[in-house]
């Protein structure tokens, strides 16, 4: 299908073994205060040293409570926000460095679908033109861009003749989200970040859109980063899952492995809070109490320790490093590191 699109698809440069995206030490602190007389009041540590690896043609689920830095990570990767620090390598090419991949090229390869299907479409523009806007920016003549846009509408399940000339408010939420997916596809991207893209939809519509995403992934050889707070959906769609807490990655690994054997107390708490039909699982709930602490100037040591049932004095001293606990399975908890001095370490 990608071959008959006028905009050429970006070629696979690094080969199948090269991860499509490698992120090292991504960091963003939002300074507080400011203003004419505002002094330095510290900063919100929104994203603090995040490492990500996404193999080609897989789906990485990113989960965590609201405010944990999931969406900021998405915006940092797409450079809608400039990161303070961090290295981004797209299919073997460093992004934003001299001689590397230019930003415009990255944004063609990496697209973002937002949560709010209505806010992410210009209310004064027909959806056909909204989808055609991107290809036009990249130099496609208007008529061809529209043709491509109609083609994509058809591909995401919206009959172009019927829907192309409509305005966003004339569509349902599910239809609008299909339009947003089509708009992302218009660039022939290789990686799509779905930021809570199905969270606002009804369960039944959600399933339809998820199925569409799975079909598109196979057909167009896409890779997804799927950001969500819905653990069931993440389990359904992802190959790997990454758990974030207060701007840091606490656990990452293959989805079956992490769901079956969570190692970080936070992951355990999250998973136990998932409504389950399995009575055996319902009994072992470790409820998460309280709200996440303030991300402004967090204290040293483990950031989860205030809410952790197994917290120990040592947790306040050492920031837990990420250690491997299985194939591809890493966790940032002192209990996973036998040498850490935590009494429950194994």
């Amino acid at each position, binding site marked *: 299908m990608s071959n008959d699109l006028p905009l050429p698809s970006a070629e696979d440069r690094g080969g199948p073994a090269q991860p499509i995206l490698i992120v090292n030490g991504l960091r963003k602190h939002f300074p507080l205060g400011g203003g*004419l007389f505002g002094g330095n009041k510290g900063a919100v540590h929104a994203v603090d040293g995040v490492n990500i690896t996404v193999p080609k043609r897989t789906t990485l689920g990113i989960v965590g409570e609201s405010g944990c830095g999931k969406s900021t990570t998405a915006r940092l990767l797409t450079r809608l926000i400039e990161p303070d620090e961090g290295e981004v390598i797209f299919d073997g090419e460093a992004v934003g460095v001299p001689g590397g991949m230019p930003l415009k090229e990255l944004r063609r390869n990496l697209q*973002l679908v937002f949560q709010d299907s209505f806010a992410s479409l210009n209310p004064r523009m027909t959806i056909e033109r909204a989808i055609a806007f991107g290809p036009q*920016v990249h130099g496609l003549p208007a008529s061809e861009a529209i043709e491509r846009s109609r083609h994509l509408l058809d591909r995401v*399940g919206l*009959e172009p003749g019927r829907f192309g000339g409509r305005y966003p408010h004339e569509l349902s939420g599910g239809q609008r989200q299909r339009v947003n997916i089509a708009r992302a596809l218009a660039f022939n991207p290789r990686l799509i970040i779905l930021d809570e893209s199905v969270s606002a939809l009804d369960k039944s519509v959600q399933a339809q859109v998820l199925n569409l995403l799975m079909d598109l992934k196979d057909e167009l050889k896409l890779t997804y980063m799927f950001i969500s707070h819905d653990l069931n959906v993440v389990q359904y769609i992802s190959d790997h899952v990454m758990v974030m807490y207060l701007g840091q990655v606490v656990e990452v690994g293959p989805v079956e492995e992490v769901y079956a054997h969570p190692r970080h107390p936070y992951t355990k708490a999250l998973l136990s809070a998932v409504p389950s039909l399995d009575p055996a699982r319902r009994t072992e709930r470790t409820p998460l109490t309280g709200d996440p602490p303030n991300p402004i100037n967090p204290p040293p040591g483990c950031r989860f320790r205030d809410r952790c049932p197994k917290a120990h004095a040592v947790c306040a001293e050492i920031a837990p490093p990420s250690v491997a606990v299985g194939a591809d399975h890493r966790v940032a908890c002192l209990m996973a590191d036998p040498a850490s001095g935590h009494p429950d370490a194994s």
Partner: protein
Amino acid sequence: MSNALTQPTVPASIKQASRNYWVGVLRRIGREKLTVVCAAILLLIVLLALLAPWLIGADPYKTSMIRRLLPIGSPGYLLGTDELGRDMIARLAYGGRMSLLIGVMPVFIAFVIGSVVGIFAGYAGGRINMAIMRLLDVFYAFPSVLLAVAIAGALGQGISNSILALTLIFIPQLTRIAESVTTQVRTLDYVEAARMSGASSLTIIRVHILGNVLGPIFVYATGLVSVSMILASGLSFLGLGVKPPEPEWGLMLNTLRSAIYVNPWVAALPGAMIFITSMCFNLMADGIRSAMEVTE
């Protein structure tokens, strides 16, 4: 896959109606009687002013010592004559040209400049935005009438000075409105999506911002015309705007002031014209605003 989906069918009537946002706005305005009446009166005043040379037989400059200050209803001078014996109907009709010009021009110029600066500031955000807005705060330290009088007073009498003075006091207000709507729109996801497409800032502003911010700025500007008319004629009333013998409502009010003991109601006529025009602009702005706020 597409066949598996059942699409909710939108009734044809609604679909047609909401095709275009502005069609809907116009239709809602049409339903408001008061707004339509105001628009009609304004149209009448504008036409009378524009077509005065063809509609009005009398010469607005022709003075007459024997026909001074005739009362309303005098034969041949339906609205009487002024202190120099000039026909009031002709003076009021011709006066509308100048009054409308010096009332509308400042808002129009300020609308253009304020939109450009405000949209730029709002879209740029951050420190640039703050610097521009702090600079404008200085203007808010002046009561607007006082600032207009001061500038016009320092520059001296004249139409262009009066327009310049009023333009200067409206620019900060319109810039602030433009900045605040742009800031709101800029953070919407669809603008971020447009940035994701790699489009230049200019393209994004042209395609995605302008259409969504010009409406609210325009409505605010329409409301300002009313203030501008009062202030512009006020400057002429003080002797700062239009020079005699040019007919202009504010200036006519000033020169007729000494006649209030002889023929008071003729003296009050030019002011009534300012009042009616300004009120119609106000009510029309209200009508457009509420028609634009409703979304069906």
